[in-house]
């Protein structure tokens, strides 16, 4: 049976993260659509990397149609108890016909095996990319029914009896498997992690919870930012929808002017001050560290060479005088990156690694990369930086350049040639066609 709590349940006491605080029951977010998720108010770190000052919620939803119930997403395994409690207040397990998972990460699929056990009449619907992940995530116990699932994609619909669930294929937000589910009649978008926040507040709705704007933006910056291109693709599907409510898998339910959040995602995914850099131009950002000025002189010569080639906007940054975060922003926007580091004790210097290990929040795939540096006797830094850039899915079209100790005028000319070559590769200039012996490749 339906809960009568509806919006009034939002008057439940504010969850301050203290144990023993009263918990809300299921909360109606649209006629016949209930939030049945779980609250995790004391969580302070999510997925190792995210700080969660306000904890988080794992939002799961139950939709009633004349043919039965649909459940959208589940919760973290440890909190399955409160999820099942809320779900049981809505209906019985044998009424569940549909379980749709918008995202298989354990915080949303944790209670799935138990739900499948309790709801034998339910069919599982996941995205076309989710099959292999499902098998790897859920290790069925002996005697469990095999995980049969139906793959769905954009345009696929389920008729729940007067209720239509329509799927949107929105991969890589932020895993390959992600999708959104749209309840046509009520104009509710169950968006998975998209439009989510790690922010736990029992008042649940965006017009009633505390100020969660920082959580919304922080979540975007750490979860969605590397996938901006995919966000833009997803927005093509989401923006045309009539939206009364956006119901994400974490944090407040966006019922008050939900479209603002959709618009804000587009803003966050669009480069700022893009016109400052010539739109038709191509940019190269060169970062360096230098102990005695040798790598600095190389960096200047590399820049001069790239400038000579023309058609590339070149910027030079001394890592010693900057902080990581703005450099990450610069790197995200640049078309090509060159890193200069001396070799000290057989390694590139720490500020280079600090920067290169801070790039998981941006997408570097396909950018052109290059490395150079002065060295004393072994000169490992350049190759190590190249390997790191390959690991970041960058292309290294020009082999790195090393100079032993102080560069001579001839060596500085080599640096300029390196810059010219790099600019050429960036502009799509091809090397002279040729045939090379495998043994000659180094």
């Amino acid at each position, binding site marked *: 049976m339906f809960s009568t709590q509806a919006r009034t349940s939002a008057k439940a006491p504010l969850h301050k993260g203290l144990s023993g605080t009263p918990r809300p029951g299921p909360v109606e977010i649209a006629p016949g659509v209930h939030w049945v998720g779980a609250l995790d108010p004391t969580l302070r770190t999510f997925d190792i990397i995210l700080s969660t000052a306000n904890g988080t919620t794992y939002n799961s939803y139950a939709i009633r149609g004349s043919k039965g119930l649909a459940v959208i997403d589940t919760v973290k395994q440890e909190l399955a108890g409160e999820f099942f409690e809320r779900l049981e207040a809505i209906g019985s397990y044998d009424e569940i016909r549909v379980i749709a998972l918008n995202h298989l990460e354990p915080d949303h699929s944790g209670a799935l095996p138990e739900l499948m056990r309790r709801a034998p009449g339910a069919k599982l619907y996941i995205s076309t990319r989710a099959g*292999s992940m499902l098998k790897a995530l859920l290790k069925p116990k002996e005697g469990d029914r095999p995980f049969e699932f139906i793959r769905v994609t954009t345009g696929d619909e389920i008729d729940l009896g007067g209720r239509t669930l329509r799927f949107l294929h929105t991969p890589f937000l932020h895993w*390959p498997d992600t999708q959104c589910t749209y309840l046509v009649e009520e104009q509710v978008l169950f968006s998975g992690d998209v439009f989510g926040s790690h922010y736990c507040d029992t008042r649940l709705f965006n017009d009633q919870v505390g100020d969660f704007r920082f959580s919304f933006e922080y979540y975007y910056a750490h979860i969605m930012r590397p996938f901006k291109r995919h966000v833009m693709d997803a927005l093509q599907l989401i923006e045309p929808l009539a939206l009364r409510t956006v119901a994400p898998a974490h944090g407040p339910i966006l019922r008050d002017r939900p479209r603002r959040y959709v618009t804000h995602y587009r803003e966050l995914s669009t480069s700022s001050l893009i016109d400052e850099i010539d739109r038709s131009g191509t940019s190269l950002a060169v970062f360096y560290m230098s102990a005695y000025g040798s790598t600095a002189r190389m960096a200047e010569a590399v820049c001069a060479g790239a400038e000579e080639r023309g058609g590339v906007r070149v910027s030079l940054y001394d890592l010693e005088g900057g902080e990581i975060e703005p450099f990450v922003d610069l790197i995200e926007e640049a078309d090509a990156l060159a890193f200069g580091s001396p070799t000290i004790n057989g390694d590139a210097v720490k500020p280079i690694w600090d920067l290169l290990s801070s790039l998981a929040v941006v997408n570097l795939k*396909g950018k052109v990369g290059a490395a150079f540096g002065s060295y004393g006797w072994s000169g490992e830094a350049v190759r190590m930086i190249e390997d790191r850039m390959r690991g970041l899915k960058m*292309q290294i*079209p020009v082999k790195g350049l090393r100079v032993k100790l102080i560069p001579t005028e001839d060596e500085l000319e080599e640096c300029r040639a390196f810059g010219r070559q790099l600019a050429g590769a960036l502009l799509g200039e091809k*090397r002279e066609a*040729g045939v*090379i012996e*495998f043994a000659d*490749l180094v």
Partner: protein
Amino acid sequence: MAKAKITFEDIEQTVNVPAGTRVIEISEKIGAGIIYGCREGDCGTCMMHVTDGWNNLTEPSVLEEKVLRENMASRHDRLACQAQILGDCKVKPA
């Protein structure tokens, strides 16, 4: 040892290789634009398009076929970390 030629069309470079060499062993060294992720045939990042000599690469394994399918590969796409060169062929990033 039998030799074969592989041409990376994006950079217009050809390499003479011993038959059986994997594409991954060559493309990074020569600076071709194929990009790698897991390097073991699971992620699909290194998908390349074979423009000529499709039959001169080893047959894709069942696992590679599955990864190609999941990544919506078009006809004559392969994973560069898996495909071994048996005869002359031409490739470019997918």
